[in-house]
């Protein structure tokens, strides 16, 4: 098992490498003089000259990449001129907030999605199945940013149950209950679409598994139907749903951009939107890179969990 995890970690390195190339190339695509674009209104002649030297912008593209990668490996993602602080510091600070939000949403959508999918499959064509199918359809068709606004109107304005924005109360907050209080609405909103997708796939996976020979065997052994479904069928279905949950991590991390904007959550998503508006391109680059790398790790974790569940993959 440890050997397998090590192998998977090694295999992730070229992917991370590829990510860095794509991120670098996207920034190299910027039309016009990059130093001026990056610096924007801070483009004093001295700053331009310094940036050109730092990034090697007068050199060829591969050389620029190597310089950039070298800096990256030393933890230097450049400097945000708008915020006047190193990109890495800002990104890491913001990122912890995003991780709390996206992590909660991911746990939420996994639990709810699996539950709904299993119920839907077990009660196929029954009332619960129809209800869940319709809810799932509504869920995956709803713009999450709009849903966020609706929830704010309902639960923060009409019934004052949850706060409308932020991560902590401005006065007297800062502890865990306060965090959870602020977390509830945005995490729920962020989880909706992924819940729908997971529920759908769980339903299909369960239905496929329930047709398998080993389910007949389980029944022929005289196991209770509950055990057949929740132990034998569910475990097999879970193996095929786990990678989907890994992929949903990407949608949740990405979707956080909207939700953080709607709920003014101080995460990396709202940071990115601001940074794009202010053309703080190095900050965008750093933020994208860190989130993308996290996504790779999420997928890696999904792989490992799948291998733990399925001995045939070892």
């Amino acid at each position, binding site marked *: 098992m440890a050997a397998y995890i090590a192998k998977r970690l090694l295999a992730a390195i070229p*992917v991370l490498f*590829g*990510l860095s190339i*794509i*991120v670098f190339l*996207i920034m190299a695509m910027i*039309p016009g003089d990059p130093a001026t674009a990056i610096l924007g209104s801070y483009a004093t002649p001295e700053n331009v000259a310094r940036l050109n030297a730092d990034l090697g912008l007068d050199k060829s593209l591969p050389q620029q990449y190597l310089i950039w990668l070298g800096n990256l490996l030393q933890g230097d993602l450049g400097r945000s001129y708008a915020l006047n602080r190193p990109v890495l510091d800002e990104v890491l600070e913001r990122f912890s907030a995003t991780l709390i939000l996206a992590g909660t949403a991911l746990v939420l959508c996994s639990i709810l999605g699996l539950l709904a999918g299993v119920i839907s499959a*077990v009660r*196929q064509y029954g009332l619960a199945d129809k209800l869940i199918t319709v809810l799932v*359809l509504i869920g995956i*068709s709803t*713009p999450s*940013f*709009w849903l966020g*606004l*609706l929830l*704010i*109107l309902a639960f923060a304005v009409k019934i004052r149950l949850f706060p409308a924005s932020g991560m902590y109360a401005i006065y007297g907050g800062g502890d865990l209950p306060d965090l959870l209080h602020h977390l509830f609405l945005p995490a729920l909103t962020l989880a909706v679409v992924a819940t729908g997708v997971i529920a*759908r*796939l769980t339903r*299909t996976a*369960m*239905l*496929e598994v329930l*047709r398998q020979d*080993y389910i*007949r*065997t*389980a*029944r*022929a*052994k*005289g*196991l*209770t*139907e509950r055990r*057949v479904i929740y132990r*034998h069928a569910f475990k*097999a279905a879970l193996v095929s749903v786990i990678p989907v949950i890994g992929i949903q991590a*990407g*949608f949740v*991390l*990405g979707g956080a*951009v*909207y939700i953080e*904007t*709607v709920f003014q959550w101080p995460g990396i998503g709202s940071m*990115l*939107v601001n940074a*794009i*508006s202010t053309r703080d391109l190095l900050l*965008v*680059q750093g933020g*994208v890179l860190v*989130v993308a790398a996290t*996504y790779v790790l999420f*997928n890696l974790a999904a792989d490992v969990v799948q291998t733990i569940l*399925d*001995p*045939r993959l070892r």
Partner: protein
Amino acid sequence: MSDTAAPAMPARKKRGGGRPSALRLLLNNTLATTGLLVLVLIILIALAAPFLPLPDPDVTAPADRLLRPLADGHLLGTDALGRDILSRLIWGARVSLAVGISATLIAAFFGSLIGLVAGYAGGRVDALLMRGIDMVMAFPYILLALAIVAALGPGLLNALYAIAVVNIPFFARNIRGITIGLSRREFVDAARLSGKSNARILFGEVLPNVLPIIIITMSTTIGWMILETAGLSFLGLGAQPPQADLGSMLGDGRKILFTAPHVSIIPGLMIFVLVMSINLFGDGVRDVLDPRLKSGALTRPVARTAVERARVPERQPHKDNVLDVVDLNTQFHIGSSVYRAVGGVDLHLKQGECLGIVGESGSGKSVTAMSLMGLVPTPPGRITGGAAWLEGEDLFAVSDERIRQLRGADVSHVFQDPLSTLHPLFTVGDQLTEAIMAHRPIKRSDADKRAEELLRLVRITNPTERLKVYPHELSGGMRQRICIAMALANDAKIIIADEPTTALDVTVQAQILSLLDTLRRESNAAILFITHDFGVVSAVCDRVAVMYAGRIVETGRTQDVLENPAHPYTGKLIDCVPVLGQPERRLDAIEGRPPVVDNLPAGCAFADRCPRAQADCRAGEITLSPFGEDRAVRCLHPLERGAAHA
């Protein structure tokens, strides 16, 4: 987001055939039809926007700002600048639709191109292209779009490009999969041999067959793309004023959410309705095209076969028999057709006896056996008549819980392919102890001991270690021994063995057969042995029943039947047994195929394949009539003694 497993499409669609029924199926689906209607309506209104009597969407009227819906002259009210929301909504929907459709077309074009080339070229080109696609997919979807917008600068066109680019991988992957399959087909080889250029083959031969998949992928991604472009506009990175799409309207309205919620809620609702209608329609299309739904492969079988007996036999069971089956009828209801899988079968088993049920696949022998403990999947199966008494207890009348108690205890099963019948994710030990503990209240450690004993009983060495392995780590013969051990776990009175040796190779077959035979003598369990192979019957069965088209056509003591088959079909089956040193006498030697059981001929079902058939054979029902001692046959012109091996 596209979670559609691309359904296998038939190569080259047939003109006409199949199409209308697919369309009808789609229209039968109320949800899909509703989706289609709403979508068409929105598109028509959006197209007609310039001709509708709407106020100019961009004319501001500070005096009329933030009117609520249903205000005079402004059905949906006005926004912060006094602009008419209804008008802006329709014009905005126009922009959103145009952007969504364009993004879909761009993604479909480039994605399909990459998929086609990668799938067709294979090798290095494929590896390189797909590695690139994997890289793009390694990004969280929206984030990549953000990065692209960041580089190109905010704007509707740039948002469109960004969304198109991040969707390319979905198309590339789906199309590549199908193309790989198609490139190996004969018609592509034929085109290659006829000297056509690669480009002409790819676009002339392969593309038309891939087109349906491209369309399905488009229908499942377009809603998503509209949603995402709206999202970028909402963030202020898409449409820039004065241009407005639904997303930017929503984004503008957000700033006055608390004072005038309608300004943001209405465009959001519009996005939702639009995307929902597309998804409803797309789901309908997918359902119609998904072969798994059509074949019923995605319906859940319930725990026990449905019993809907039209008639219950009056005859009572014989007290010497462990199992007594009278007039068993089992049907499959698929769509509007009814397949009579088992049409009136009588069987009985005494303690310690082995009865073989022989027949080709489709003869109803397995369905007969699986009906007893309710293991025929419902849907589509149902037991429609007859009775099966296990020591006087009617198995079709007892409660579900009673059936559960009997399964694996009094009556246990051994199935055909031990690789698919053992659960791949549990250890052998888990599966064995579970079988034991389902029927007796013992501790796990005691169950473990019992499991070890069972493994020893089926002649498995190192039982302690074997309990810890997973099924895929064992050989086929070893796996079947495990299954047999499981069947013995609770001292079964009857073991139903459904082709237990068919999936094994010949030497292993012989070992398993002799093991079963020994164990039955030791435990005194009766065996119902299902097989297509008379050779196997002769090795283990005391009596045999030959089935054809859901009925028993001959039954008797194994020796008698083997030496002097009376039914022509039995004779043929015996001829199929390979004889050592005579490899030309091989199975599958019976000409013709068994009849389709939803359309049985009148009279003898075997008549079409029978060399002895005469006019009276097709005239009417033929009964299973006594034929010597302990013997019965369903044939008007049975074989004479010794005629079979002529």
